[in-house]
């Protein structure tokens, strides 16, 4: 892990301030905002509701995810991120419990200062929990990067750090079973560097999961 101070004064192994809030939107059956520092993503969930016959599945719920950037139309990078969130959300939701219905997750990036895919995943998961959609696991996402030519990892990169990094990773984990449910690596890296990033992020994800539990249960009856 990187030693020395980063641009914003953090250590290499330090995450930014985490922030989350549910039930933030009037519409929708569940919603959540999640932040890594200034990176802020809103997720809104509708469902389980009736679905058009063309998209109906007799034995499962139809899960649809849309991903919108801050402004403009979704470009290829946004579509790719949306697809990754979609495949992860589809495996986390217990689709067999609600056949012939649909669950729609709308993801809106509100501010992108790095680690936006990880923030989008965490926001989507919290929004699904807020809506009470049945889930088989609670995935937690964290990003990491190898800045410049350095061989030392830093967690939760800023946008400025991502721009000069030779490799940026986003991982999501089901910490109950210790499985990796999403792995995205962009750039150039060796296999041992990938393994190191994966294992380090799994450790960092524990902190994010503890935060998610705290953020979700605040204000709810126990």
């Amino acid at each position: 892990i990187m030693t020395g101070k980063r641009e914003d004064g953090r250590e290499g192994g330090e995450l930014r301030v985490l922030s989350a809030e549910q039930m933030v939107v009037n519409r929708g059956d569940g919603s959540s905002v999640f932040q890594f520092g200034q990176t802020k993503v809103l997720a809104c969930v509708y469902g389980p509701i009736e679905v058009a016959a063309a998209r109906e599945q007799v034995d499962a719920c139809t899960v649809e995810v849309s991903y919108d950037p801050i402004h403009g139309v979704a470009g290829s990078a946004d579509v790719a991120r949306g697809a990754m969130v979609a495949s992860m959300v589809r495996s986390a939701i217990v689709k067999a419990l609600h056949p012939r219905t649909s669950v729609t997750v709308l993801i809106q990036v509100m501010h992108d200062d790095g680690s936006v895919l990880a923030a989008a995943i965490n926001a989507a998961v919290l929004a699904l929990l807020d809506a009470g959609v049945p889930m088989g696991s609670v995935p937690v996402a964290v990003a990491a990067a190898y800045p410049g030519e350095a061989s030392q990892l830093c967690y939760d990169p800023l946008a400025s750090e991502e721009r000069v990094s030779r490799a940026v990773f986003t991982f999501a984990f089901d910490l109950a079973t210790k499985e990796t449910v999403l792995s995205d690596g962009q750039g150039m890296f060796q296999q041992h560097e990938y393994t190191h990033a994966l294992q380090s992020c799994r450790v960092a994800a524990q902190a994010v999961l503890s935060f998610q539990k705290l953020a979700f249960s605040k204000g709810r009856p126990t």
Partner: protein
Amino acid sequence: EAGGVVRLGPGVRERAGLVEVCRPGVLQREPHKGRWRVEGSQKRYVPSTGDLVVGTITEAGGEQFMVDIGAAFPGVLPTLSFEGATKRNKPNLKAGDVVYTRVEIAHPDMDPILTCVDASTGKAKGFGHLKGGYVFSCSTGLARQLLYWPPAPVLAVLGEALSYETAVGNNGRIWVNSESPLETILVVNAIQNSEHLTEEQTKAMVSQLLQTIEEEKGTNEAVNQLMVDTVP
């Protein structure tokens, strides 16, 4: 129980021989060694057998009524599932009418089946047509709180000051009726405000609302008097 049967309700499922929770909330067991379930609070209602629901009839067919209960699928209420109903004597309900019913069968693969008779006695027991009044939505958690006995603080405090009637559905729909629209709106607002308040806060909130209604009544009387005086 050793070697016993575990019955799973909403929010709990079986996977690979283990019982797993699949939604956030409080793990509870229904009374009389009933099903295990996880109770959270959601906006979207998922029907479960035994729930009491407030619904609005959307279609009145010959054999059944289709009822909107706020779930993914409409509920099916057979025309014979009413006290004293026969093939020649069917209930006189039409689209738009509000009914208080019980979910007789809820299964993921079919539309929920509703009934307006109590299973054991065949009597209406409070189910059936709700005339007049006003229906509003709330979270399933608040609806559950309002269905407990002894009554929730907000209902008890309102009952001391006003006379009103209410039907609460597990589906997050509440029907309220009282002597005037003003009082109905007050009851609706009080219930909506009460979700996260303590008992003392609820009492303070209700008395504040009651005060505004007194002022409103005073204003109305003044306006009425003015009209009586000015109209020749």
